[in-house]
């Protein structure tokens, strides 16, 4: 059965996020030959429509309004519901991002439908669309489908391969008008804490520190390594509880669950609660003084040694490797 599937395009600092392209690819699987419709919501998003088409959307709808410059659940829900009303889709896909997590349950409750959150893969079997998603923070997985009605899911960043960008693709871009009123939550200010703009959940490379970093300053060599590799810095609960860093960096069963291409664990022992948050990373490197540390059991490569010695050496080595590859 072919379906009409809506994919919400999400922006960060004026650019479409990778997860939106990944969601388009998932949309293709869900649509089964039907139409994949990109949706862009904001105060000025028209210019991004073409890129959604290049990544596989057949058509793009925009909802533009000055009240939509910042995400609010009320504003974006009104905009999206106007699109849903007009298009009557069979499926809706969001990225499982802060925005996607916040907005999707509201839309599902409004429509009285199910919602599959945080899907890491999508497949089709005998006409049914099946999603796989982690449970117990990745200690196990479930395969799940919608019983009937709307196919609604959020897609975890970094897990589904986006389609190859095709500059020659074209498609219709049109606008949908929605009246945006009665915003009950008002954003007064946004304080940027993430310095380099690489978000943990989308980062391809994560350098994480544990109790072994010993202090806030101890994160400095990790940051330098992250900079060289274009990655983000994360932390274990131990490091957060000891106040070496902000809780927003925490990776684990409480905290963020991440699946980067490369995860370098520095001075992290590997408590179950931390492993749950990172053990599905593609490649794991462990650096720890204690050769018996649990983290070595999930690591692809390990170095037994003092992180303050090893990490700066790695930074230098990667600088050389990177320079050599240019």
């Amino acid at each position, binding site marked *: 059965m072919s379906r009409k599937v809506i994919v919400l395009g999400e922006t960060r600092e004026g650019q479409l996020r990778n997860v939106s392209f990944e969601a388009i690819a998932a949309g293709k699987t869900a649509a089964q030959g039907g139409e994949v419709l990109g949706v862009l919501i904001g105060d000025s998003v028209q210019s991004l429509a073409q890129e959604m088409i290049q990544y596989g959307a057949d058509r793009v709808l925009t909802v533009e309004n000055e009240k939509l410059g910042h995400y609010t659940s009320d504003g974006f829900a009104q905009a999206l519901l106007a699109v849903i009303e007009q298009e009557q889709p069979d499926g809706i896909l969001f990225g499982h991002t802060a925005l996607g997590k916040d907005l999707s349950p509201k839309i599902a409750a409004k429509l009285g439908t*199910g919602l599959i959150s945080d899907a890491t893969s999508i497949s089709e079997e005998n006409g049914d669309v099946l999603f796989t998603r982690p449970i117990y923070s990745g200690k196990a997985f479930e395969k799940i489908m919608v019983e009937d009605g709307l196919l609604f899911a959020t897609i975890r960043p970094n897990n589904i391969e986006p389609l190859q960008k095709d500059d020659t693709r074209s498609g219709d871009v049109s606008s949908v008008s929605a009246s945006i009123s009665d915003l009950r939550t008002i954003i007064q200010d946004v*304080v940027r*804490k993430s310095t380099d703009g690489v978000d943990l959940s989308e980062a391809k490379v994560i350098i994480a520190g544990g109790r072994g970093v010993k202090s806030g300053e101890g994160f400095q060599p990790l940051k330098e390594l992250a900079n060289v590799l274009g990655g983000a810095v994360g932390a274990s609960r131990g490091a957060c509880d000891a106040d070496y860093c902000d809780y927003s960096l925490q990776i684990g069963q409480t905290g963020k669950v991440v699946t980067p291409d490369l995860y370098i664990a520095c001075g992290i022992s590997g408590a179950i609660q931390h492993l749950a948050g990172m053990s599905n990373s593609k490649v794991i490197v462990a650096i720890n003084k204690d050769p018996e540390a649990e983290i070595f*059991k999930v690591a692809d490569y390990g*170095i037994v040694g003092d992180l303050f010695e090893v990490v700066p050496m790695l930074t230098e*080595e990667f600088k050389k490797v990177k320079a050599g590859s240019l």
Partner: protein
Amino acid sequence: MNLYVLLKRTFDTEEKISISGGRIQEDGAEFIINPYDEYAVEEAIQLRDEHGGEVTVITVGSDESEKQLRTALAMGADKAVLINSEEDLDEGDQYTTAKILTQYLKDKEVDLILAGNVAIDGGSGQVGPRVAEGLGIPYVTTITDIEVNGSDVSITRDVEGDSEKISTSLPLLVTCQQGLNEPRYPSLPGIMKAKKKPLEELELDDLDLEEADVASKTKTIDIFMPPEKAAGRVLEGDLSDQVKELAGLLRSEAKVI
């Protein structure tokens, strides 16, 4: 203030997971209050102590959930409600739980509902916003600070590491993020008192709900463990050689840089 906390009983974070007969094996596992819901309980208690009123903790679960409700009462909550769905429902999803909670709350005088931003077992984070939508009240997710002044509310929320400052008003639902507070341990007198605090038990019938009203919208087909990772390689030799080897391996073998 009438404060309500939505609470879930979950596996302890230190538990290993195993599967038998297509289900997560629960025998012998330790259960706790979902850690994010603990922040909600703590914040509700602090807000009550500051503004007066009452904290009611609610869970949808089974007889066994009473233990976690009693823990919340021992922390300082005033009343607990256990909506026992065990006999009526085999399976439920977030639609189910949200529908039941909404039905319970819809005729209550609610000022503020607090929930965890996600449960560490199911991990969907849907129930809070769904309940808010069902009740027709606004919500703010992943909060790290809240101040209530009359009916005005100022909130800081975590958005992928950045902070948003938000102003809104009661009635409201919030979901709690790490960093909001340090949940207290129940004191011994608290534990004694909790035994006598009211714990109301309800079934779907008491809420005028039929099984069909709350039937799952999704169906789990299979539960499985992630593929076992083969033990990796611990490098050997001179530290500087190890570092060179690692960089080389990441480039040529793992192809991640």
